[in-house]
């Protein structure tokens, strides 16, 4: 198992900078997800780490050892592709044994290790089948077994669950997590699905335009996004524009069209957006930050009601609340939120 270090990693395709001076430290045994919209560079970063692309600049280190110029077959990695990439002309057994053959393990050892891992992924008895004879979930597990059986230093997963149906995807998420913890392999997991990232990762690396936007555990990113873009990408948010009036120890007083609000944030002064999650807005005056508004629309989501509320000065708020009280469109309401649930970020940049 090895730690992974990316230093000033840069990759260009024609005139597009796919990965822009990326710096990232991944600890031994950690599972990090690279999360972001398409085109953000997460897959390219993964391919750079795997050795399938060469960077224009920067270094890649496994456990302190530079691998930047090593071809993939010398990096001791395991990779699972979105389409699994199982060798169609080889049986399950031959697929899984392939890596061990490349390492010139003795045949007896290969047999034993392949059988062991196939049992572990609950595919014992399917050794002689060909990939096209397996279901999606089974192929998935063969791909995992093939990647893990060689005990690689690093495990790379490129949206491995994207081709599975929703229910299977959820099951496999926990499954992969369990396997990874058991093997303790340093793992990089690429996905565009936030829920997946939040379930799986020790830390999430949120990327945009080839750059790292925020790195940290799921909860931190969710509750304390570093930029408005991050706030918008993860979960739903309301943004209330205002100006910083006063600041004491990370607690801010912000003047808005609806009054003076107390919140926290890293911003010192100037224009800010107060980010409040829809579930943190409550009907009624129980919290210090209060807004008066009118219900514009209401949607029934099963366990929640989703409201769109018009506030003062063109403010639009989205509130999600339980069905204990139901408000009708056109009704005048008051919503409030606690300072602890409000986070101020710098002004929203134009565009995504």
């Amino acid at each position, binding site marked *: 198992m090895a730690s992974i270090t990316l230093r000033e990693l840069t990759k260009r395709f024609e005139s597009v900078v796919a990965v822009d001076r990326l710096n990232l430290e991944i600890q031994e045994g950690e599972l990090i997800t690279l999360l972001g919209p398409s085109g953000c560079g997460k897959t390219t970063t993964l391919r750079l780490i*795997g050795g*399938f692309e060469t960077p224009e600049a920067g270094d890649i280190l496994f456990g302190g050892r530079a691998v930047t110029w090593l071809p*993939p077959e010398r990096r001791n990695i395991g990779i699972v592709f979105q389409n699994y990439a199982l060798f169609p002309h080889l049986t399950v057994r031959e697929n899984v044994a392939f890596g061990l053959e490349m390492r010139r393990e003795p045949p007896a050892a290969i047999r034993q290790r392949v059988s062991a891992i196939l049992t572990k992924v609950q595919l014992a008895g399917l050794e002689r089948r060909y990939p096209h004879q397996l279901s999606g979930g089974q192929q998935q597990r063969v791909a995992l077994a093939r990647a893990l059986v*060689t005990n690689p230093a690093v495990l790379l997963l490129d949206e491995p669950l994207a081709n599975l149906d929703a229910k299977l995807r959820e099951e496999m998420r926990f499954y992969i997590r369990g396997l990874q913890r058991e093997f303790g392999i340093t793992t990089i997991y690429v996905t565009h699905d936030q829920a997946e990232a939040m379930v799986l990762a020790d830390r999430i690396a949120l990327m945009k335009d080839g750059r790292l936007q925020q790195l940290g555990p799921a909860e931190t990113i969710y509750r304390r996004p570093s930029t408005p873009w991050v706030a918008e990408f993860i979960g739903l948010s309301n943004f209330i524009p205002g100006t910083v009036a006063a600041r004491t120890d990370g607690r801010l007083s912000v003047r808005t069209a609806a009054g003076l609000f107390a919140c926290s944030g890293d911003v010192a002064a100037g224009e800010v957006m107060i980010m409040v999650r829809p579930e943190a807005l409550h009907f009624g005056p129980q919290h210090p930050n209060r807004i008066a508004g009118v219900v514009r629309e209401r949607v029934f989501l099963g366990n929640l009601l989703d409201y769109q509320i018009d506030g003062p000065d063109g403010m639009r708020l989205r509130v999600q609340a339980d069905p204990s009280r139901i408000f009708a469109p056109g009704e005048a309401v008051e919503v409030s939120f606690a300072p602890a649930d409000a986070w101020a970020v710098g002004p929203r940049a134009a565009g995504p």
Partner: protein
Amino acid sequence: MRRGPLSGWGLGAAVTLIYVFLLVPILIVVAAAFNAGEYLRFPPQGFSLRWFVRFAQSESFVRAFLFSLQLAVYATLASTLLGTMAALFIVRHARRVRDALRLLMVAPLQFPAILTGIALLIFFYATGMGTRGMRPLFIGHTLVALPYVFLTVSTVLFGFNRSLEEAARSLGAGPFVTFRRITLPLIKGGIISGALFAFITSFDQFPISLLLISVGNTTLPIALFDYLRFSYEPTAAAVSTVSVLLSVAIVLLIQRLVGLEAVSWGGPR
């Protein structure tokens, strides 16, 4: 949907007639080869293999047959090797010059074979190579067979899933091992069907052969042609039938290997 002339029996009947039109001449030749009598009459005069016996006894035809076979094998080997190499390079590596290279590879198909034959004849004489022996024919046949191999291998390569190779690399296989154990087995079908097309193209080749043959070295189609110009004897039908059977065998082989869908072309691209 309401059935009318455009679907159902109307179209089916017309199309059947057209397919009959396409196949009848070939079937007629085969029928003539097995016909007991001199001339093919209706109704046929009985079954006989005597024309095949005559074929086997005709020194000139047998020699032409073997010569064509040998030539086709050489041309197939050369064009398959070159065509596959070209396809590998062009599909995977050539980025800026890809279109130009593809055009070049397919060019021998675009130019009428008779013109290519003429150009080669003049060229061989001008360079002193002459048209003696198999070599000029070998070059000409390889030239016109190349595009077929290139096209079929390119098609297979195009749909090839690169992540299979990356998976192999990630498991420790270097580029050569990956090619040998993963890529080659999976594109085998395309290579083989390209080779089969090349073989048939060479074996049945006419215009190029016409211009590049020399005394004593004639191919089967040319021998047949010379024969047919001035006489009519069912031995020619037997010769033709052997040639047809060869073609049929190859078509079926291709269909089994890759499926004709994969290699059908809609004309020069």
